[in-house]
């Protein structure tokens, strides 16, 4: 009986090791989370400098319904990794807009130093393509840098 031996001979049943059997489960959970949440980009980023805005908001639309239009400093337009002449933007956007059943959101990614005349022509092109929702892509401006300006 345990009492007779003073309870000292008996080894403790509690393991001194951290249970590692659930480690693989945790790892797989994380793995599956990242697999599901990963979205592969359709186009490569153009080298532009972002304009900053404190009112920057996330676009409330699925990533597949967002079309990026890159406007570089010299006014050249890039859509889906290929340069597009300014006058042909509406011809490119129109079929994409129809294919998305009017859900397409255009993200205008203009360089911060692009002259506004290019942005205006681009907006005219988008209006003629019938696009309604447009987002001027910006980087979030912190209130700290805002106060310093």
């Amino acid at each position, binding site marked *: 009986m345990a009492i007779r031996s003073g309870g000292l001979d008996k080894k403790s049943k509690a393991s001194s090791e951290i249970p*590692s059997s659930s*480690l*693989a489960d945790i*790892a*797989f959970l*994380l*793995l599956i989370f*990242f*697999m599901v*949440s*990963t*979205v*592969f*980009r359709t186009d490569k980023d153009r080298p532009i400098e972002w*304009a*900053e*805005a*404190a*009112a*920057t*908001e*996330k*676009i409330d639309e699925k*990533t597949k319904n*967002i079309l990026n239009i890159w*406007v570089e400093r010299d006014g050249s337009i890039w859509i889906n990794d290929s340069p597009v002449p300014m006058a042909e933007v509406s011809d490119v956007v129109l079929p994409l807009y129809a294919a998305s059943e009017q859900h397409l959101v255009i*993200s*205008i990614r*203009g*360089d*911060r*130093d*692009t*002259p*506004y*005349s290019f*942005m*205006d022509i681009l*907006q005219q092109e*988008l*209006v*003629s393509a*019938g*696009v*309604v*929702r*447009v*987002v*001027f*892509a*910006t980087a*979030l*401006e912190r209130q700290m840098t*805002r106060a310093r*300006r």
Partner: protein
Amino acid sequence: MAVINQKKSKVSDEIPTASMADIAFLLLIFFLVTTVFPKDKGLEVVLPEQGEEVAVSQNNILHLIVRTDGIVDVKRGESTSIQQMRPDDIETLWRTEVTSNPNLIAAVKTHPDAAHRFMIDVLDALQLAGAERISLQLLEDF
């Protein structure tokens, strides 16, 4: 002898699971590294439909003329007096203006040579102030 039968086989009949976590972490790190979170954020505007032109009373228009140096000329309706402002001050301006006239429309007219970021600064200030009726135009007579 009974002793032989009692001896258990030393070869385990289980698949070794010790390296499972290593494999899982390898995959995890691979996906962590290859994941690119898209940078889909910005200032949303709604473009007018083609041919859509609405006559608005000049009293309900606040002209914000963005100059090439980023300074904003503020002009109320038909009055010719021009007030010069920094884009940051537009936010408070709009808040005070819109309380006196809830139907006010912000007409942002940008000089063709003004940098895109100056227009964004004004749009930013207007959106921070909660403005919804914004019209983006190109400055024509300058």
